[in-house]
């Protein structure tokens, strides 16, 4: 087998590898096309529990419950769901729970559907208002180190971090 035929590692697989390395076992999500590959891999992994949600704030609460019981959870959502989480993030703050969410951005790069833009614009500010640190990945090389550092900081010392995957990284949605 020639190595040049080996498919390049995708940045989505870098996130998955970080989940494995850090022993993330619960993955609540509201789906987004930007997370589709990662969600498929989570579903294919017996040691990981995918938890489909009806709204993003459910995943904030379930992630806190996971930590109460000694497991690590990472919430996947798109930027349009961030506003739904605001009040539930008071649980993270009041109890000093660790928190990691990976947010696929819409409404910021070649977006056709301008209904996505207001919540996209408000996403970093919403997290910051609730005391969540915001990290951003604009290129594939950013993803592995950012996710690795966030998982380490969150679960070693109960920090709260949102990682934004830029729409330029994910690729614009074609209509």
């Amino acid at each position, binding site marked *: 087998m020639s190595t040049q035929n080996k498919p390049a590692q995708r940045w989505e697989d870098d996130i998955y590898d970080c989940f494995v390395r850090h022993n993330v076992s*619960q993955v609540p999500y509201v789906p987004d096309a930007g997370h589709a590959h990662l969600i498929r891999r989570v579903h294919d992994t017996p040691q990981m529990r995918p938890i489909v*949600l009806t709204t993003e*704030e*459910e995943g904030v609460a379930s992630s806190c*419950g996971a930590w109460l*019981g000694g497991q690590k959870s990472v919430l996947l959502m798109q930027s349009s769901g961030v506003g739904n989480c605001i009040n539930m993030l008071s649980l993270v703050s009041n109890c000093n729970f660790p928190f990691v969410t990976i947010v696929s951005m819409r409404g910021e790069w070649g977006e056709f559907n301008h209904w996505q833009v207001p919540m996209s614009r408000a996403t970093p500010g919403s997290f910051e208002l609730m005391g969540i640190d915001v990290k951003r990945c604009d290129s594939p090389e950013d993803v592995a180190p950012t996710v690795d550092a966030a998982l380490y900081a969150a679960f070693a010392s109960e920090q709260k971090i949102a990682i934004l995957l830029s729409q330029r990284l994910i690729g614009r949605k074609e209509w």
Partner: protein
Amino acid sequence: MTVNNNIERRQAVRRLLANRGETLVVCGLGSSTYDVFAAGDDDRNFYLWGAMGGAVMIGLGLAIAQPDKPVLVITGDGEALMGLGALASVAAQKPDNLTIIVLDNAHFGETGMQPSHTGHGVDLTEVANGCGFNNSQTITDYDTLDAFSNTPNAANGPRFAVVKISTENPDRALPNLDGVYIKNRVRSSLGIQPV
């Protein structure tokens, strides 16, 4: 609509927890938290003072993380209604160690006893049935409540019950407010040290 429910909330929660064994409890903000505390403080109680609508999903995350221990969510009709979608999310996961109890007085007790949706006819047991719970019921007397409390979770769990309670409003019983303390106490009870 006049409803005469004879079950008293404090008595109901005392009976639910009388033989709790290793049960971990998550209780919704307001009266449910006071009821659970009044039944006896316990390291394994996660008292909520906020995060309305979150009790069931906290219970789900905990139940998945601790599959060998019973997890009991005790909350009110108002708190459950705010997180109604959580019943769908729990039903999709089907953790057989999770039990959800809704203490239903058909009112928002903490805010002036405004009628809630259940007072307007919304049937949370039917909602749970529709979501796919195999084991859901409405309880209106103590004998049924005791039978429910003393029955282990079925293999086809999770379980869901609405307990119809009277509108009496007992004095508040206030557990510790410190969320970090409450969190670490639950984790320590499971042998998990603070970070």
